[in-house]
């Protein structure tokens, strides 16, 4: 199977280029296995990866035009030759490794932690199974960045629009029956950019390797805002 891989090392390359590799495809191989095989051929080829099972979120890359997690992207589902590039819209550090600091900064913007105002009980804060169900589809995010770096609104305004990942996280806390900072959370999302630059293009939904739906979460936040306004 043939791979055309994005290469750039700021120390040695004046500009990025695509390099062809060929690897032997084995049964059950994921894209990450192919990238590792490429690395055995050329040790200078660099990408992030760790758990190999789609939970750590390290190895998000752009494959044949779509953002995917390499470790759970089967080669059998990819068109040969496979074009592998870093996430679009992020500064490239080297090869497939991009600078994600803006993405993380936007996550921090939504105060992504549970906030309580009442004193804490001695035991657990009670939550019914139905209340807990509201977190399904929100808490599972692995912060790989596939969604935000696939979002045209985030490409245009990465510093002002929070992006689908951060907004999904905001929704995760708004949806938690234990959280008591809903009003402040909504206030922080006011204005034309942070939330409202989402134009429901839904690239994020297509990109999410965990099957989550940030667009729906953003719609949910807007619905709460509307309800509060009335």
């Amino acid at each position, binding site marked *: 199977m043939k791979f055309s891989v994005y290469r750039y*090392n*700021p*120390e*040695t390359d004046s500009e990025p280029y695509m390099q062809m590799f060929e690897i032997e495809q084995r049964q*059950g191989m994921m894209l990450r296995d192919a990238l590792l095989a490429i*690395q*055995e051929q050329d*040790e*200078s080829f*660099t*990408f*992030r*990866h*760790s*758990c*190999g*099972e*789609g*939970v*750590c*979120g*390290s190895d998000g890359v752009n494959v044949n035009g779509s953002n995917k997690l390499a470790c*759970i992207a*089967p080669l059998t589902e990819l068109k040969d030759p496979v074009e592998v590039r870093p996430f679009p819209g992020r500064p490239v*550090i*080297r*090869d497939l*490794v991009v600078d*994600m600091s803006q993405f*993380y900064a936007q996550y*921090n913007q939504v*105060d*992504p*932690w*549970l906030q*309580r105002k009442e004193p*804490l009980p*001695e*035991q*657990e*804060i*009670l*939550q*019914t*199974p139905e*209340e*807990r169900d509201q*977190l399904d589809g929100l*808490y*599972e995010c*692995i*912060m790989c960045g596939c969604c935000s770096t696939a979002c045209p609104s985030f490409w245009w305004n990465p510093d002002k629009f929070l992006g689908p990942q951060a907004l999904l996280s905001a929704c995760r806390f708004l949806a*938690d029956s*234990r959280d008591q900072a809903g009003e402040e959370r909504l206030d922080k999302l006011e204005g034309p950019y942070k939330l409202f630059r989402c134009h429901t293009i839904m690239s994020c939904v297509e990109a999410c390797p965990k099957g989550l739906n940030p667009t729906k979460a953003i719609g949910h936040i807007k619905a709460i805002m509307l309800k509060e306004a009335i």
Partner: protein
Amino acid sequence: MALEKQRFDTLILGAGGAGLNAALQLANANLKVAVVSKVFPTRSHTVAAQGGVNAALANVLPDNWHWHMFDTVKGSDYLGDQDAIEYMCREAIPTVYELEHNGVPFSRLANGKIYQRAFGGQSQDFGGEQAARTCAAADRTGHAILHTLYQQNIRAKTHFYDEYFAVDLIKDDAGMILGALVLNIATGEPLLIESKTTLLATGGCGQVFRTTSNAHINTGDGMAMVLRADLPLMDMEFFQFHPTGIAGKGMLITEGVRGEGGYLINKDGDRFMEKYAPNAKDLASRDVVARSIVTEVRDGHGCGPEADHVMLKVNHLSEDVIAKRLPGIRESAKIFAGVDPVKDPIPVFPTAHYVMGGIPTDRFGRVMPTADDDGEHLPGLYAAGECACASVHGANRLGGNSLLDILVFGRLAGHNIIDYVKENKAHRPLNEASVEASMARLGRWDAKGDGMTVSQLRNEFRKTMEDHAGVFRVEDMMAEGVEKIKQVREKLNDVRLTDHTRTFNTNRTEALELENLIDVGLAIAVSALHRKESRGAHSRPDYPKRDDAEWMKHTLYWRESDKLDYKGVRVQPLTVESFPPKERVY
């Protein structure tokens, strides 16, 4: 260029559950704390823990911490230190409540309390009926906990050095640890972090084996740093092989699957665990289940064209239970085994999973540098989590006790560091010689020319470990393994990098990781060769019995001359009667 230096009250190496729970205590107490992690914190391997965390909350079935303690001592095959175990099992309860208050999205029972599931080796009333002690967030408990702890650290404004690789501990002539030399992975530049206290929370070393549930990053870095600082590792022969890795691949299928009612079958469809553990069956301790699977396969009862695995049957459970309690497993089985567990059984085989041994600490998380039973701890140096050995897991860890260990001892280390820094306000003078030695070790990788590649030697090493230090171990096989690994250690000198640039050079960090892996692998192999008994995960067909008279003691291994020494098990708990060794049956 002059070496850049930074000073902190506390340096934490590692940002998994242990490191982050310690950091949270310290940041809340306004200490100046630096957390160094070679990956962005939520990529740490705590994220992959599935089944849950043990605490005797008694939300589902009757329970108390004393029963939990009994199960843990028995599970450890009586090698665990009973003071540390008592502490952990008592602290489990407030620790889980604190996590919940911090925001962990635990699954819930109809009455609103935290959902708890049955796990292996758990009993009510000191060996009676099955207990349900494992607090779970579906089958993504580690993810839920790690993300919550990271979120709380954002709130507490903890100072993170993300994607910095810890190279070596820096120490002075008195043996005190002064901080660490770390490497900024993105720029390739070294940085010296001086600290009054240092906490090692670097996690496990499963990458020493070829087939493992562990992530690429689990290379035993902290353990190897300790070895290079002339400190010992304890009980490294005890390595847990999780019974149910996806066959041929190694990805974990949680014990929670069996806790929810799944069971193992061989090629004839027999539920073979009934034969090996008549009472607990599929929920016997992990060492027992792993050995049973290997035995079934060796006796020709394996499944598949190569007859090299067994099957984990789940399809008798309702699709609703699987969707609610085991969604991640269903996803993993589909992706990596190509089966939907709702319809077909999952092919499984034991996979290298967890090291019970590690950096010896007392029950306060303080590192213990000697084999002396009444020895003093090394002031200012702490270890917590999988890299440490308190020892709460002894010869075999119970499922659900790993998340518990990292959380309880991470938090405790945090509290003890706060006290230590109150008493010790000044930094000790820097020891330039130690910094130079570490810089020289880094510089060695600048050598050019022909040689083996990192991946060639790594493949050879991991295969050797798998062949010679696996589930069953006999004298000749292990002795040969030790010799081969020593040869691998020699061959390290012949390894050369092809990439000598500085920017995000993973070729270089993987070389440093390989050095760590080999040091830790040798600690495992040498410790294993010398323990002539079967206990917990250390199973020797040539010495099939546990030998309490001779071997109820901890192994200590030093890198220098591959020296071994031993120290006694702490059998006296804090407030209750000691559990004397008994035959261990499930």
